[in-house]
């Protein structure tokens, strides 16, 4: 039993709680604590990557109870990847926020730590109800972070976001109820086992539950028609928060992968996930298209980025719904890219907005700006990466997705929107860039604030990561392929988790 | 004997509850409704205790106690609200 495995959940929890106890700490101490804890998370995530590389599944039986009775944490390559991504992303967000935006409200760092606890928990848990709990943790924290800084736009967006997600949670509970009522268990592996052997009469009900779950996760992942809360929420949030939210939609995606491909996918013969995947495919494609259109129509860089998030969700879910191992690996690579770049753009919007005289990140406003050359260059490079042009990770990931999807019979349905949305993104970004950096005159030097080196550096490092992801793509891809292979071997998951319990009768005699 | 009488007692309290609901529905003033709710709470204490006796479990005492406590607090909150337009000040 390796205790390091619980760390990604316990460390942020302890940090957050401690920050509450020491509620009088000055901002400096809060920052150093928060950054320290996030650094630790990165370290443990790296450990997780290595550990998952060594052994396919690492279990952690909370309370030392035999699954499926106790809650069990399961670490495999997929969850390890998500952990690392989260840790890195949050590190950059904390660093960026520590330049001042954490001052706009109270307890930013505590809330952020709790948010991380929720996200990591969702990635690690092997129990469906526990997943619900961690969803609630990360949601409530995200509500608070979304409202961080106050203001009308945030209140409105926040209200919508909260109410919609409360509805989502209700649906989640309903689905859980149905599943428990029919299977009598909550552990994912055990659920998979029971669902695979469910009586014919119950199957439609189980599938209906999976459809409900699709809506639940669809709300988190921003799947059409459940995504309309997203653009305003993300563009209202303060920059580092929005950047952190780049991972939130991916949590929904992750949950779908886990639940639909593993829990509902055990029975190779007639998997119970066929219905839900059949529904996902068209919805995801429409999502993707709408995202592209939204990118073109966006009126500010943050909104544009929000729609970029939607585009990425569309691509991820569309690829996932085709139920193909290679394609899943490719979409995981795209997940890394899109998360990183959308985060970059949320930060970039803020960074540039700070040095424009007025209009913040609005396209309609022509405003003098300072540091044209540095910001312009950063924007250009970021835009190239975001538009999945070479030589950045976007290019590689898109190439991979298109390649591995070309074996599908209906691959053109995926290709067309991906390529066209790519064009729309190029158009939108070129408009934005030329309008911002080519049009206006330089801001008078005395009026110009000095460039914030730390913020800029943070953004640059993130872009560099996207670049190096392309340069060192091969090892990453190998890892991702292994991760996808595990996902498509649910039986291995079930055996690993349930161990000797498999086959043992339910009735435990007293 | 107790077993036979309990259902009738419960029935009586159900009638009482219905009367409370009637007052709760018709008002006319909000204070009447609050009074009705308060009474309803008290009657439901009886219902809980009776159920406890009927099932002869003896574990619902806390529930009764809490209803009493919560009913009181609720009533105070509402009246305070009516009096001051504000509950905590």
């Amino acid at each position, binding site marked *: 039993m390796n205790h390091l495995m619980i760390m990604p959940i316990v460390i942020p929890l302890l940090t957050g709680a401690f920050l509450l106890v020491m509620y009088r700490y000055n901002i400096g101490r809060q920052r150093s604590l928060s950054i320290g804890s996030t650094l630790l998370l990165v370290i443990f995530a790296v450990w997780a990557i290595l550990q998952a590389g060594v052994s396919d599944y690492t279990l952690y039986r909370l309370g030392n109870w035999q699954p499926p009775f106790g809650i069990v944490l399961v670490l495999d390559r997929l969850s390890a990847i998500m952990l690392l991504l989260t840790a890195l992303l949050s590190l950059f967000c904390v660093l960026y926020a520590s330049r001042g935006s954490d001052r706009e409200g109270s307890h930013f760092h505590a809330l952020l730590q709790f948010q991380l606890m929720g996200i990591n928990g969702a990635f690690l848990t092997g129990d469906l109800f526990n997943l619900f709990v961690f969803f609630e943790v990360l949601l409530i924290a995200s509500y608070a972070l979304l409202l961080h800084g106050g203001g009308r736009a945030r209140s409105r967006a926040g209200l919508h976001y909260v109410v919609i997600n409360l509805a989502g949670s209700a649906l989640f509970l309903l689905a859980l109820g149905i599943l428990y009522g029919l299977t009598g268990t909550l552990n994912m592996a055990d659920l998979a086992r029971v669902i695979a052997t469910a009586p014919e009469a119950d199957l439609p009900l189980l599938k209906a539950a999976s459809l409900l779950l699709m809506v639940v996760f669809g709300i988190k992942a921003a799947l059409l028609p459940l995504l309309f809360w997203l653009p305003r929420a993300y563009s209202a949030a303060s920059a580092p928060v929005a950047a952190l939210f780049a991972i939130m939609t991916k949590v929904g995606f992750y949950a779908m992968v886990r639940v639909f491909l593993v829990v509902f996918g055990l029975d190779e013969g007639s998997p119970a996930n066929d219905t839900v995947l059949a529904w996902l495919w068209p919805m995801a494609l429409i999502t993707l298209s709408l995202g592209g259109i939204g990118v073109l129509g966006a009126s500010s860089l943050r909104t544009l980025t929000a729609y970029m998030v939607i585009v990425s969700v569309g691509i991820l879910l569309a690829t996932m719904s085709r139920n193909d191992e290679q394609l899943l690996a490719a979409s995981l690579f795209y997940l890394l890219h899109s998360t990183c770049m959308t985060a970059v753009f949320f930060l970039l919007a803020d960074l540039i907005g700070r040095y424009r005289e007025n209009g913040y990140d609005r396209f309609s406003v022509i405003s003098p700006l300072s540091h044209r050359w540095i910001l312009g260059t950063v924007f250009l490079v970021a835009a190239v990466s975001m538009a999945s042009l070479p030589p950045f990770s976007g290019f590689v990931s898109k190439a991979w997705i298109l390649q591995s999807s070309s074996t599908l019979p209906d691959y053109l349905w995926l290709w067309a929107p991906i390529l066209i949305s790519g064009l729309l993104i190029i158009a939108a970004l070129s408009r934005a860039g030329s309008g911002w950096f080519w049009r206006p005159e330089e801001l008078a030097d005395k009026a110009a604030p000095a460039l914030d080196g730390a913020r800029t550096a943070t953004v640059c490092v993130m872009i560099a990561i996207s670049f190096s992801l392309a340069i060192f793509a091969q090892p990453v891809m190998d890892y991702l392929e292994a991760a996808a292979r595990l996902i498509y071997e649910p039986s291995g998951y079930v055996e690993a988790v349930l161990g000797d319990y498999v086959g043992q009768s339910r009735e435990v005699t007293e | 004997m*107790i077993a036979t009488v309990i259902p009738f007692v419960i029935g009586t309290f159900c009638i009482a509850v219905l009367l409370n609901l009637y007052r709760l529905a018709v008002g006319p003033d909000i204070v009447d409704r609050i009074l009705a709710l308060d009474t309803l709470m008290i009657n439901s*204490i009886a219902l809980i205790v009776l159920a406890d006796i009927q099932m002869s479990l003896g574990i619902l005492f806390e529930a009764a106690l809490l209803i009493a406590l919560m009913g*009181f607090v609720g009533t105070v909150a509402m009246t305070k609200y009516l009096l001051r337009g504000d509950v905590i000040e």
Partner: protein
Amino acid sequence: MNGSEMPLLLQLVITFFLVAGAIVALIGSIGLARLKDFYMRLHGPTKASTLGVGCILLASLLYFSFLKGGLSVQEALVTLFLFVTAPVSAHMMAKAALHRKLKCSPRTRKGPPDH
């Protein structure tokens, strides 16, 4: 329900309290439903219901004292609590009514002094 091996007297007492409680509480609620104005309705619950429920609690006290063996006085606590709080609730509600200047029934001899 194993009231069968219970001594008849105890059964009688319990039954009495149960019935009495039921009736008193019912009367309280009837008052709540029937009486003319708020101030009159206020009287029903504050006393009757409290007492009625008190009786039920007393019955349960006796019942479980026998059932569990030894004295089970928890219910007394609830009764006590009710008797302490009920007047205050009534007091607060009356204040609210006065504050809202609810009109009394025409038969009222002397209305409230208006502040």
